[in-house]
């Protein structure tokens, strides 16, 4: 076997055609992904609908208290928006006759996405909710593997791109983020794989979660809480600090609320320290009386009945007027 170098002369300029075909195929896929993003996942549809959410907040009359619930599927399933809007637990304010609650809760998102997403879709767009309720589960205020491409494509706004790139943990992540901002194909490659896998590959459903277990779970409840100096938590703490600062610049009152999960937990110490330091109201509702494991139909998210109880608990806690930075 050899590597004989006898390229035919007629192929002299052919390689540029090959490169051109490669580039065209990339652009074709990019176009397809942009055109059919909604078919790839419901979650993407939700993200793409965020500007409408922001517009509804902007359009709300002055006498309406606008509340933006920020979180992920835990918040989406865990909060009854109607009840939250219509509930009577809100602190009395003569200028606010009623409440309108909106949701920004992309699947699997955590503090990095919330930080840049709130800035992009709300702060930069001039959408100013009166209250932001940041609902977090056990690990979502700690570092989680976040796809930089997805962050760049769907959460970071163009004016913040350089800041976001600088905030990444490595040069590679910074470059990925910038590329993601330009290419939705790169940002959605994982969605395509799982979609094809679940649809066409026998046994994928059983094998894939097992083979990839642990890759995006983040710190486990059983693991020791990271200390304030823990480098793994530092990026997330920084993101939360930025989010708090963005909320203040927007003139919004930010409340951080822990969401019940089947197993009780405590929000990590570095996060609690930051909330105290920045005097951000924190409502520790990880354990709510009456919310029992049977109210989590999929053993992770609250069901309808649980959501009602949790929303009631939120309203109660807000109504008590949580002291800044303290557990309530």
């Amino acid at each position, binding site marked *: *076997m*050899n*590597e*004989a*170098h*006898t*390229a*035919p002369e007629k*192929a*002299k*300029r*052919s*390689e540029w*055609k*090959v*490169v051109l*075909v*490669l580039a065209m*195929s*990339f652009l074709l*896929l990019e176009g397809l992904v942009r055109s059919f993003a909604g078919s790839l996942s419901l979650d993407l549809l939700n993200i793409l609908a965020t500007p409408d959410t922001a517009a509804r907040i902007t359009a709300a009359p002055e006498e309406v208290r606008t509340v933006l619930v920020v979180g992920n599927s835990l918040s989406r399933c865990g909060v009854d928006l109607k009840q939250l809007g219509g509930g009577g637990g809100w602190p009395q304010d003569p200028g606010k006759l009623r409440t309108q609650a909106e949701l920004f809760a992309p699947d699997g998102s955590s503090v990095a996405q919330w930080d840049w997403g709130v800035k992009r879709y709300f702060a930069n767009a001039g959408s100013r909710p009166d209250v932001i309720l940041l609902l977090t589960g056990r690990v979502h205020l700690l570092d989680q593997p976040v796809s930089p491409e997805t962050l760049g494509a769907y959460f970071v706004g163009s004016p913040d791109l350089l800041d976001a790139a600088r905030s990444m943990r490595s*040069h*590679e992540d910074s*470059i*990925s983020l910038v*590329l993601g901002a330009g290419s939705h*194909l*790169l940002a959605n*490659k*994982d969605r*395509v*794989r799982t979609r*094809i896998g679940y649809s066409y*590959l*026998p*046994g*994928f*459903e*059983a*094998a*894939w979660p*097992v*083979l*990839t277990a642990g*890759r995006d779970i983040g710190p486990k409840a059983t693991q020791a809480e990271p200390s304030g100096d823990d480098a793994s938590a530092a990026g997330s703490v920084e993101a939360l600090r930025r989010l708090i600062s963005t909320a203040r610049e927007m003139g919004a009152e930010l409340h951080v609320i822990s969401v019940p999960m089947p197993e009780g937990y405590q929000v990590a110490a570095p996060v609690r320290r930051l909330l105290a330091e920045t005097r951000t109201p924190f409502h520790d509702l990880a354990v709510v009386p009456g919310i029992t494991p049977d109210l989590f139909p999929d053993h992770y998210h609250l069901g309808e009945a649980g959501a009602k109880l949790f929303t009631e608990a939120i309203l109660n806690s807000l109504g008590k007027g949580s002291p800044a930075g303290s557990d309530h």
Partner: protein
Amino acid sequence: MLFNSYTFWIFFAFVAAIYRFLDHRWQNRFLVIASYTFYGYWDWRFLGLIAVSTLVDFFVAQRIADAGADRGRKTWLMVSVSFNLGLLGVFKYLGFFVSEFNSFLAGIGIPGGIPGIHLVLPIGISFYTFQKLSYIIDVYRDKTAPTRNLLDFALYVSFFPLVLAGPIERSSHLLPQIENPRQPLDERRFREGLYLVLSGLFRKVVIADNMALISNHIFARPAAELSAWEILLGIYALAFQIYGDFSGYSAIAQGVAKWLGFDLMVNFRHPYFAKSPQEFWQRWHISLSTWLRDYLYIPLGGNRKGPVRTYRNLILTMLLGGLWHGAAWTFIIWGALHGGWLALHRLVSGTPQPRDGQVEGGRITGFIKMAVTFHLVCLCWLFFRADSAGQAFAMLGRLAGDAWHFGGLETGMVSLMALYLVPLVAYEWWCEKKGDLLVLTKAHWGWRAIIYVYMLWMMLFFGSPVPQEFIYFRF
């Protein structure tokens, strides 16, 4: 700066853009700077080590060439060999031997022992040390004239496509390419480089990293929790993970070097189509296997001193080959298995097999030999990858037992392996039949376009969700 990272390709684009406007001498200077930047990006603390070891061997080579008497030459040779093996010994093996010595002391009831030593292994040290050793030994043997230009030698040692994981180039092959003006990037070089880079990235990103998901699954759990099918599929996946990872790296290194005007040696020739252990080692990590042959096996006497000495030399060479990978009993067992198998095969077959798989016998015989060879290689990989010999034996125990359950998980593993491996094996079989590793570069451009688009799409959509570092970086 991994080859499968955006950072590397931005770095390379910058290097290539400047490089093409420089004349030969400045190209070499610039490549030394680029190579040290590349190496320092991993860990700048080891820049001093590679620089000092380059200086030592540069001057030792001059002394060897200038020393008239054989004794003086030998003395300088020993200086270099001791220095290089000493570096490897300190960084790679000292901690292992101290720990084994302490275990021995504890075993005979002597507490305490030597304090543990935990040194960070300088990346690529085994590769560039062996490359320097080949230069020094070749100068000693008068096979290579020593270079009188320090920068040229520094480039020979640190050339960025190969400094981290080879191929372990010979001075007689690489140094002339450094010392003489190189061909500019023409159509053929661009085409071959593109093929090598794309096929290498495909093997790394699609094959190796996805197979790693499957193999890591079995090595991360106690054998007792795994079905025999899981273990078997995991070992097959491991075989392709290591192959995809290392051959992919070598191909990218070759491709990148080709774009800069260098021709690096071929490191892999479809090793899993080998029909005997000898043939496997003529196809697998060729730069190491030929190094071991030329600088260890032949000096030990090779096959010139009777069958018993030949078997001893084979086993000894492979044991040291195993130890080259790292200080662990699993690598030693891996080397011993390969050495024992080579010796046994030689005992049974009498003479070495001819090259390039031209074995006697029909198609079915050839296929059986190929399957047997592949499975024996897999057995060796099991020890190579296992955390301990105990883990490997526990897995073998499961395979020998009655835990052959085939459920949804196993079905999924087979589906994923088929998705990734069937096109690869079919393509490599075609290349094998054509007897040309670069056959696709000579096909009509349309075929290349189709296959490259397939590779690009697979890399985009089926690249592993967990990118893995190249396995051989840790050696």
